[in-house]
């Protein structure tokens, strides 16, 4: 169990395979991010927080679940930092802590019915991640 | 052949004839230089003329005269290499290309238990008389190792050809088969194989001295000032060292004439080292046959900007 923030930070960096220290704070990720307007911690600050080791705050952030995993930030980042991968990694931390199934195959039809605009890719990746 | 040699020697068109001389036994022919037309009676060309005469031209070509030399198809590759390295002057040579249907290995007769050989009749089937009775063997069973991967019956350099009809298409086996087999083994297996072979080396230097690519006036291993001179293999390392460096020094120049293995009294398959380089060179830098022409540049004397990095070695093997 990762109790301390330092350990969590290392884990996030390891899982994401990316290096937040490479970020030069140009803000391109946030500029390019489609749901950025609705985020409490916008992508560039997400990176900054990982760099600073504030993982717990990120785990509680709304942004964590607002990210569409569209990877526009990854595509555009001039420094090769992958904000989406960091978001992904923090999500995994949360899921691991929850430690049980949050999505089953039976839930999916209902989810799709509830919101027609919900990206199918999101459902698929959520199913993959939230069930074990 | 003898007639042609007689003609050229007596007319003074050539000052010497480099050919083979018959010996005291059915198989012990020696390379010989004939300067006297009378002596040509002893000249011979048979299945035991496996030795490659091209290297002798370095020494024989020093005289101020023209030399007539008889070369088998595979020998002409060696000569081309020598020509390309200025070791022999083309204008001093009169080259007669002679046919060849593969040369014989008397050691192979012996390993089949044939001893006391007093006579050999050469045909598709060899008839062998011995002190202990007669034997018959198919010719192809006693071919020299080098003839098992024949380069074909074309002469690459010559002034005239005699007895091309003598040539027979030799079965052209996969010359890289054994190299590939070794490459497929684990490093430990390869190490064991080569230790077994190279530990036999007695450093007689027969391989080096017969090699038409080993033409240094003074070999680094003989040169007390080189820092690596060694008269014998005092340790396993020196056995490896001698053979690695020898193979490296002829890499890209070795025409795979097979003389090294033929002459080794200890039966070490030295040609498998040279062939490894030939296989690598052809694989990494494009098909290459040294001595194909006298104008070819060794692949170690040129380069390509896009050459492979050394990690191609492990990539090729697909494992480690």
């Amino acid at each position, binding site marked *: 169990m990762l109790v301390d923030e330092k350990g969590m930070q290392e884990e996030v960096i390891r899982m994401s395979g990316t290096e937040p220290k490479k970020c030069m704070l140009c803000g391109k990720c946030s500029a390019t991010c489609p749901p950025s307007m609705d985020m409490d911690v916008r992508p560039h600050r997400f990176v900054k927080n990982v760099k600073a080791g504030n993982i717990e705050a990120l785990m509680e952030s709304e942004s964590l679940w607002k990210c569409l995993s569209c990877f526009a930030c990854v595509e555009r980042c001039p420094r090769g930092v992958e904000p989406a991968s960091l978001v992904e990694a923090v999500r995994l931390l949360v899921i691991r802590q929850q430690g049980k199934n949050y999505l089953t195959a039976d839930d999916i039809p209902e989810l799709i019915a509830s919101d027609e605009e919900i990206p199918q890719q999101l459902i698929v990746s959520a199913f993959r991640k939230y069930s074990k | 052949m003898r007639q042609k040699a007689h003609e050229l020697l007596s007319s003074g068109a050539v000052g010497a004839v480099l050919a083979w001389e018959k010996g005291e036994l059915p198989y012990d022919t020696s390379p010989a230089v004939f300067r006297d037309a009378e002596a040509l009676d002893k000249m011979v060309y048979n299945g035991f003329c496996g030795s490659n005469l091209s290297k002798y031209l370095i020494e024989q070509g020093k005289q101020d005269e023209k030399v007539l030399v008889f070369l088998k198809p595979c020998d002409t590759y060696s000569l081309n290499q020598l020509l390309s390295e200025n070791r022999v002057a083309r204008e001093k040579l009169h080259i007669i290309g002679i046919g060849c249907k593969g040369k014989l290995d008397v050691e192979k007769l012996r390993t089949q238990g044939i001893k006391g050989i007093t006579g050999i009749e050469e045909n598709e089937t060899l008839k062998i008389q011995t002190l202990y009775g007669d034997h018959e063997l198919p010719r192809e069973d006693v071919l020299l190792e080098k003839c098992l991967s024949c380069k074909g019956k074309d002469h690459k350099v010559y002034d005239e050809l005699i007895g091309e009809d003598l040539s027979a298409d030799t079965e052209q086996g996969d010359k890289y088969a054994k*190299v590939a087999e*070794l*490459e497929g083994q684990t*490093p*430990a*297996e*390869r*190490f*064991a*194989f*080569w*230790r077994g072979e190279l530990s036999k080396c007695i450093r007689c230097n027969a391989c080096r001295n017969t090699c038409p690519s080993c033409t240094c006036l003074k070999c*680094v291993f003989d040169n007390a000032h080189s820092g*690596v001179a060694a008269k014998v293999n*005092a*340790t*396993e*390392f*020196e056995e*490896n*060292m001698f053979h*690695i*460096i020898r*193979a*490296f020094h002829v*890499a890209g120049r070795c025409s795979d004439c097979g003389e090294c293995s033929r002459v080794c009294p200890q039966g070490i398959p030295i040609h498998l*080292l040279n062939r*490894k*380089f030939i296989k*690598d*060179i052809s694989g*990494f*830098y494009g098909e290459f046959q040294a001595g194909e022409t006298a104008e070819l540049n060794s*692949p*170690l004397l040129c*380069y*390509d*900007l896009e*050459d*492979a*990095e*050394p990690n*191609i*070695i*492990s990539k090729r093997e697909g494992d*480690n």
Partner: protein
Amino acid sequence: MQVKDQNFKPLVVSFCCNWCSYAGADLAGSSRLEYPAEVKIIRIPCSCRVDPLFVLRAFQRGADGVIINGCHPGDCHYTSGNYFTRRRMTLLFSMLDYLGIERERTRLEWVSAAEGARFAKVMNEFVGKLHEMGANKRLGDIRCKE
């Protein structure tokens, strides 16, 4: 599972060309980047100065690994030296491999004068690998052992 000798210190001879790799090693030094002290550097004008004899010599005398460092292809101070090196060493390494000498004991690397960090990284990696493999037992000369 092979038991590793914890006290084993691989001896590494590292040939560095004067123009790129030696300067890269200098930069590693001036940047205070650590790499194992087992690496000993020999300065040569160009990687193409490395004769296969030198590589074998190092193994004879007890080296556990030999690494040759030159300018990146295209950057050779002498235009073409490293291209010759690349061919020569590829063939030599392949031959050593063929004789059953472990492939990981020889290495050719391109390190520019600006790549101090890479120099240190390559050395760390190389020595790390040698640590895993243990001492060179296949290509040493027993007379040179203690």
